[in-house]
Structure formats: structure tokens, C-alpha cells
């Protein structure tokens, strides 16, 4: 198992996350895409930790996993709240900051 494979996997995961973020409207999918990108970065950290023989990378990766868990709570709560106020989980509806938005 060469580290290049892990780099490739991380890149692919990150790209899938990015494309998902740009092309989908559902807030849940967006959330999952963001998580995917975070995970890709995490994987990269872990890989470098292994390659460079440095435990710091693994420590940060573990820390990030904890942060992701906390973030998931907040994110999901926010999505629920958004659904309660606007009866929709479509991200395109959330354009109130735009001046003169037609479907605010």
C-alpha cells in the first residue's frame, strides 16, 4: 500500500464533496458533502502522519473527528430550525441576504 493511493483517495473524496456542494441544493446533501471534504482532509492528515512518522498528524485527525461530531449536532439542529421557519430544506430558498431577492 503506497501513500499515493491514499492521496488519490483523499483527492477523489474531496472532489466528490466539492462537486456535491456546488451541484446539489438539498441542505442534507450539502452537509454530507462538507463532511466528505472534511473527512478527505482528515484522511490526508492521517496518511501524512504515517508517512512522516509524526504522531502530531494523527492527534489532529482525532481532534478533528471530535470537532466533526460536535459540528454535526449543530449543523443538524440548524437544518431542523431552517426547516421549521421556511418549510424547506432547499438551499436556493435561503437567499434573504441578496438585495431584491424574488423568492425570499
Amino acid at each position, binding site marked *: 500500500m503506497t501513500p499515493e493511493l491514499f492521496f488519490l483517495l483523499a483527492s477523489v473524496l474531496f472532489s466528490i464533496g*466539492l462537486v456535491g*456542494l*456546488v*451541484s*446539489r*441544493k438539498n441542505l442534507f446533501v*450539502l452537509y454530507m458533502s462538507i463532511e466528505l471534504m472534511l473527512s478527505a482532509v482528515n484522511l490526508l492528515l492521517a496518511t501524512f502522519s504515517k508517512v512522516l512518522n509524526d504522531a502530531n498528524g494523527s492527534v489532529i485527525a482525532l481532534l478533528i473527528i471530535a470537532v466533526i461530531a460536535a459540528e454535526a449536532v449543530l449543523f443538524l439542529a440548524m437544518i431542523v430550525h431552517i426547516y421549521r421557519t421556511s418549510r424547506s430544506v432547499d*438551499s*436556493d430558498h*435561503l*437567499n*434573504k*441576504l*441578496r438585495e431584491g*431577492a424574488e423568492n425570499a
Partner: protein
Amino acid sequence: MLSFIVILPFLSAFLMGVVYLENTKKKRYSFYTLVGVGTPAISTVLSFILGSQLLTGSDTIHDTLFQWIDIGDFNISVAFMADRLSVVMISFITFIGTLIHIYAAGYMKEDENYGKFFTYFNLFMGSMLLLVLADNPIMMFVGWELVGLSSYLLIGFYHKESSNITAANKAFILNRVGDFGFIMAISLLFISLEGSGFTFDSIKENITMIDHETLSLIGILLFVGAMGKSAQIPLYVWLPDAMAGPTPVSALIHAATMVTAGVYMVARYSFIYIEIPDIGLFIATIGASSALFAAIIASYQSDIKKILAYSTMSQLGYMFMAVGIGAYSSGIFHVFTHAFFKALLFMGAGAVIIALHHEQNIFKMGGLKKELKLVYITMFIATLAISGIPPFAGFFSKDAILVTAFASEHYILWGMGSLTAMLTAFYMFRLLFTVFHSQSTETKKVHAVPAAMTAPLVILALGSATVGFLGANEAYGGSAWINTFLALPDAALSISHTKEYMLGGMNVLLALLGMGLAYKLFAKEAQEVKVDTLFKKVVVNKFYIDEIYGFFVLKPLLILSHFIAEVMDPKIFDGFINFNVWGYRKSALFFSKLQNGKVRYYALYILIGVSGMSCYLLLKLGVL
């Protein structure tokens, strides 16, 4: 003291202006009269004192008020200079001006803008004095422009009628055409002198620095200025229209101020004109043509003030003829005598107009001999003077000009001058006989003429009868005192006394002929000009000059202006700007689409941005 002559009228104009603006409705008849008439009177006294100083020796008096501009070689002072020429000018300007002011106090008494009138009037006097007493061409130009401004204000004084405003604009704009020539001339003069002083004295000293061609050009351009101000062909058309102003204004414009400025200027720059006799001849030709042309028109006019206006133009023609052939003293002498009788004629005409409740058509007047006896006598004297009947003033000055023209062997000019002399007598006596002798067609109650208006007439009548002796030639027992006093660089001409008597006699004969013709035609009963022949039609319509100017100057200008206003400006210039605006709007619309409030697009922009930066970094670092 010299400065005070000029400053006083300006100060009083300022004072009256402030007082008038404080309350425009309030009648302050005695205040305005005291200040408005008093100041020119003081100026008159000062001018006479100055004149006596020059008589007893001193050559020129300089008086510098302050340095105006001082940049390297270019330094202009607000300075005044009185030499013999300007002293003669200011003496009669202030004297006759004061008389006209007194007259105006009577004439304008009922006017609600009495204060404004005297403000302008004093400004006019001050401007003219500034022009005459200026020590350098720049100051002269300031006076020149101020004269134009005040004439504009006064011609349009009855501003409630739009035709008067048109007349005022016409005068102002035509004067601007002349001013263009004047300012070009002084600029050229300044450049050619290469900074060796710009007062009249230093210009005179350094005049040899300038080559003949440049000097000719300067001479012509200066004369263009004179044409405008002194109403010569082709810039004269404003003068008859300037009659729209109150009659005292006409008197002031025609006698003391404004129109004489051109002749004065040519005499002031005589040191230039003696170098360029061919330009002088051109001036003389224009003068003679204007004289004859105006005399022909005047013979067929029926408005009393227009006749006098054309007669002024005609007399100015004589003056230019004189200064053109190099007889500067004779020209100035004619300015001097003309001021007396022309002021008198205008003031007499004003009295008649007032008496007949603002009637100006001479053919609706008639038989006023008895009712207006004083006006009749004084106007008769003025008419004799302008027609050149000895011993009245006009004879000597006009004769001096015609004799010079004859002696300098410009027989065509002399012939035109003599013909004009006959026509002058004809149209002036036509006016006089029609107004005072002929049977009145309509009898009107004659309005009383106040003493303030008749007293100046008497003084001027005395002047018109006697001032001629000041310049009487040797042939007539005088010593041409005024010529000696002026000491201008006159062309030296000699002519035998016999010839002089013959010429003088011929002038008198011609004048009498014109007078007799006028008597025969108009003394018993006068009839309005019948337009039956083509010639009469052309003359009555003033040779259609206004129409020709309208067609050849105004119309193309209007068409051009319309083209610019309706095609060039909205299509080309606005079009260019509008095109730019359209471009900005379009690009702005495009960019505003990017900011659509959708979160995933923003994520895309971040993606593009980050990718761009990453690519840049990678390329820079040489990884790829």
C-alpha cells in the same frame, strides 16, 4: 487729481447703485440728482483745471494709482495719462456730459427707475473717461469694454419691451465683433514689442521695432475695433437701433461718449498710423463711404431719432476720413464741434418728443415753431452748424477736413465728402422744416418742457455757434489754435488761401443748395416718403443691409447652431456618452448575475478561486 476725474463717476455710480438696490421703489429724486449730476460737474471742473495746467506748459501728466499686473516683463499699472489730446477729449466729454446729465434729470423725472438710470449714466461717463485717460492699451481696453457694457445697459433701459432688449443685444454683440479686432491688435502689439514697456509713451518710442507688415495688421485690427464702436461700415447697424434707449442716452452715446471712442483711438495711435499711410487711406475710404451711405439713408427716414443716428454715422465718417488721410487734429476738432451740435440736436429732439407725448415720426409733427420757440431756435443753430454754414462750429471743422482731403489729392474722397455735405444740409433741414414749419396734420396738446431740459440747450447752442473759432484756419482769420494745441503728427499739407476760399465757398453753396431743396419740399407741407421707385424702396429699407446680414450671417449661424443642437450634440456627443453608459450597464448586469444569493454558486466561486490560486502557486513553484 487726474485719477479723481475718472474715479469720481465710478464712485458715484457705485454709491447710487447701492442706495438704489437698498430700496428700488423709493423715490430719492433730490439725492440721485445731486449725486448723479454733481459728480460729472466736479469732473468737468477738474478737467478744466487740468486743461489749464497743460495750457501753461506741462506736456503730459501721469498719475499711477497702483500696479495691477507684475509678471516679469509684463507689468500693467492702473495709471492715467493726460496729454493734450486726452485733455481736449475729456474737457468736452465732461462738459457736454454734465449738460446731458442735467437734461436727463428733467427728461427722466417721471421714470420709476430714476436711480438706476443715473447709476448707469455715471458709469458710462466714468468708462469713457477711463478709455480716454488710460495710460496703456490694457486700461484703454478696460474702458472700451465698460463703455460697451454701459451702452448695453442704457440702450436696453426700457427693458419691458423685448424689441429694446434686441436692440441692446445687437449693439453689444456688434461691439464684441469690433472688440475682437481691438484685443487682437493690442495682443499683437504686445508680442511685437517683446516686453519693452506697454504704456503709450514707451510704445511710441519703440514703434520702430515692429516691421511694416505687422504694423499694418495692427492698424487694420485696431480699426476693426473702431468700426464697431464708432459705427462705420460694415459694423454700423447697431447705431440706428440704439435709439431704443431714452433720448439722453442717445445724446450721450452720440455726442460725448462711445462713438467718438473710435476716432479718439485712431488719433491716440496716430504714431502707428503715420507709418502706414495705405491703411490710413483704407480708413479714409471706409469713412467717406459711411458718410455718404448714411447721409443717403438719413434723407429718407421719418423717425426723428433715426435721422439723427444716421447723421451721426455720417459725421463719424468725416472724422475717419480726416484721421485716415492723416489730419488727426481736424478729425478730433470735428469730434469736438460735433459733440456740441449733436448733443444739442438729440436733446432738442428729446424735448420735441416729450412735448408731443412720445411721438417720433417727423411727419406727424409740424408747426411747432411757436409752441417750442426756444427748442426751435437752438435746434436751428445746431442744424446750421451741422450743415456747415459759417460761422457756426460745423463749418470750420468740416471745411478743414474737406480742404485736407482736397489738398492731399484724394479727389474721390473729397467729392464724396462734398456730396455728403450737401445731403447733410438737405436731411437736417428736412427734419427741421418738417418738425417746426410745415402744417401740422394732427393738432395735439403740447406738453410743457421743463427748464432743466431747455437750459442745457441754450448753453449748447452758444457752444455750437462759437466753438468753431477755436480751430478756424488761417484763411478765415484764425490760427487753427486747436491743431497747434493738440500737437498731433498731422500730415503736412499746404494749400493756397484762394483755393481754400473756393472750397469753403463751394461747401457753403452746396449746403445752401441742400437747404433750399429741403425748404422747397418740406417747409410748407411735409409728406411722408412715398415709396414709388425702386431706388426709394431700397433706400427707405436702408439698402436692406439688416436683411442681408440676416441672410448671410445670422441664417447660416442659426442653421449651424440648429445642426449642432439637434444633430451633433444629441447624436454624436450624447451618443458616445450613452454608448458608454449602455456598456457599463450591460457589464454591470452581467456581474450582478454572479451575486445571486444561492449558496452553492458561492461555493463554486470559492472553488474557482481556490483552484485558480492553487494553479498559480503550482506554476510559480514549478511543480507542474
